[in-house]
């Protein structure tokens, strides 16, 4: 576990790079620091292995204050990967990988075993061991950079924009590789980036920093669902927020409120009149308390109008519904798979509070593709004013 306790860093000349940061990272978490340049994200990361020392506050690793540790020993226990890769150009790939094991004076066969095992993990052939960094492509070099940070079984790996200088395809491959390695080996990764896509893809939790302070520290889903402030929203970007919406939107947000309903005691002619007035072809049936009982549609009324008198006699009482708060993505699947025209939304007491129609889904898909968010919001609010708000929580 890594803990930041009131950590500040003030550089000579009074520039506050990091201001009173408090964070706790659990073992095995993938933490991504993100922020604009000068936000203090790299400074925060580099304080963990004492490449930069805090001006005040404490950093604890497994409860132990790192300032009480020998910095050299501490750094050998923490993997370190930088954007410029930093392989030693005068050493073979093998010597580069076993750099830290060698400093720790591991026996030679253990060093070799570690190097070969890790090289296989990143899908590079064994004969790379005798080559020199200059003979490798940028992506291959950074793979070596990554396994060099793992070679001595470090539990914590620090990565400072490691893929910033790579082309998009190589970057994607390496992101997946790192995520896989992290999940497989259960190590704690502290990763610094300014690329939101990268952060969302890799992180278990994201630390968003601005002017040396932590603005938000949460899981990617929560950050997308509830950006802490305008800065975070801008940083995530409108496109991503919109794209993320179907995943985190609930049915409450898109449903039509106050759907048309009748009580079972109403006569069929009354039901028909309501349908005609409201220009719909089906009605939900609710009891006096508003609890959903079933539904009737125009075909059913037409077929049975000679035999039955009240809605209750002919309603279909098997209705699929979703509860309020259900994620929209689950609902979408149900609607599309079962071919429903619409699906009612009920609250936790079973009362009908809304309706998700295929048309609502069209809006969602439209938003995702075109992102006309503001126009859509404006429309929705106009729509709401024409209907009395009763069921709003």
């Amino acid at each position, binding site marked *: 576990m890594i803990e930041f306790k009131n950590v500040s860093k003030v550089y000579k000349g009074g520039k506050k790079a990091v201001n009173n940061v408090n964070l706790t990272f659990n073992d095995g978490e993938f933490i991504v620091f993100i922020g604009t340049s000068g936000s203090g994200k790299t400074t925060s990361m580099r304080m963990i*292995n004492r*490449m930069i020392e805090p001006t005040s506050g404490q950093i604890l690793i497994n409860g132990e204050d790192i300032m009480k540790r020998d910095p*050299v*020993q*501490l*750094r*050998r*226990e923490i993997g*370190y990967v*930088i954007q*410029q*890769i*930093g*392989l*030693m*150009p*005068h050493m*073979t790939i093998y010597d580069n990988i076993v*750099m*830290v094991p060698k*400093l720790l004076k591991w026996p030679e066969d253990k060093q070799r075993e570690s190097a070969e095992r890790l090289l296989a993990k990143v899908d590079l052939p064994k004969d790379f061991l*005798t*080559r*020199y960094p*200059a*003979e490798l492509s940028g992506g291959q070099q950074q793979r070596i*950079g990554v396994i*060099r940070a793992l070679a001595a079984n470090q539990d914590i790996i*620090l990565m400072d924009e490691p893929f910033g200088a790579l082309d998009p395809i190589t970057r994607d491959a390496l992101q997946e590789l790192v995520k896989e390695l992290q999940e497989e080996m259960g190590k704690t990764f502290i990763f610094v980036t300014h690329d939101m896509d990268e952060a969302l893809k890799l992180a278990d939790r994201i630390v968003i920093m601005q002017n040396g302070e932590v603005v938000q520290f949460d899981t990617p889903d929560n950050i997308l669902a509830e950006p802490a402030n305008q800065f975070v929203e801008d940083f995530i970007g409108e496109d991503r927020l919109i794209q993320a919406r179907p995943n985190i939107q609930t049915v409450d947000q898109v449903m039509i409120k106050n759907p048309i309903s009748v009580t079972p005691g109403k006569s069929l002619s009354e039901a028909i009149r309501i349908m005609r007035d409201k220009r719909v072809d089906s009605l939900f049936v609710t009891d006096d308390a508003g609890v959903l009982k079933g539904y009737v549609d125009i075909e059913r009324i037409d077929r049975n109008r000679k035999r039955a008198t009240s809605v209750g006699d002919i309603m279909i009482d098997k209705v699929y519904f979703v509860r309020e708060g259900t994620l929209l993505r689950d609902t979408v699947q149900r609607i599309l798979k079962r071919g429903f025209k619409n699906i009612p939304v009920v609250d936790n007491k079973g009362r009908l509070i809304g309706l998700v129609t295929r048309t609502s889904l069209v809006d969602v898909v439209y938003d995702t593709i075109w992102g006309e968010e503001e126009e859509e919001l404006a429309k929705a609010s106009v729509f709401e004013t024409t209907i009395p708000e009763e069921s709003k929580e």
Partner: protein
Amino acid sequence: MDMTQMNMWEQLIFYFSENGLYIWSQFIRHFLISIYGVLFAGIIGIPLGFWISRHGKLADWVIGAANVIQTIPSLAMLSILMLGLGLGVNTVVTTVFLYSLLPIIKNTYAGVQSVDKNILDSGKGMGMTRWQLTYIVELPLALSIIMAGIRNAMVVGIGVTAIGTFIGAGGLGDIITRGVNVTDGGAIILAGAIPTALMAVISDLFLGWIEKKLDPTKNKKILS
């Protein structure tokens, strides 16, 4: 055998055949004086170069001082040192030492500065001590540039040693001055000058070859 009947070339060959051993011994003496001077400069200059690269403010002072030494004409320098150290070999070795300091310090400084800061950062971040960073990273990466400085110093040193004859240090300069002092001494001058020039050219080529071998960016060709 009448020397006056021979042309310059024949005279030269004659001189070589008659005094081959003498020329050889002066050649070795000349070479050793230069080598010692450069060697001592290396022993002092390389650590000094590393040291000033860690203390940026001192670098200007140290290199400035070495620059001043370099600007003193060699004959003047010899004479000044002679006042303190007397005649003989030691004074010449000291002169060569002083002249070698600048190229060696300057190149060591430049070599250490040229090491990619990111490589140092990753080395430090992996847990290298200051000393390990120096001999595992900085020294190997700066070595070819340091070697270029030594090469430079060696060529200058061979030249300075030739003047050392004026304070009785011996070396090939002795032969040259002898040729200058006699009538029609052209062949004798050449007998001293050609080996001096050869020594300078060959040392330069040899050290240049070593420099290339040490270039860390070229070493892949040695092994693969």
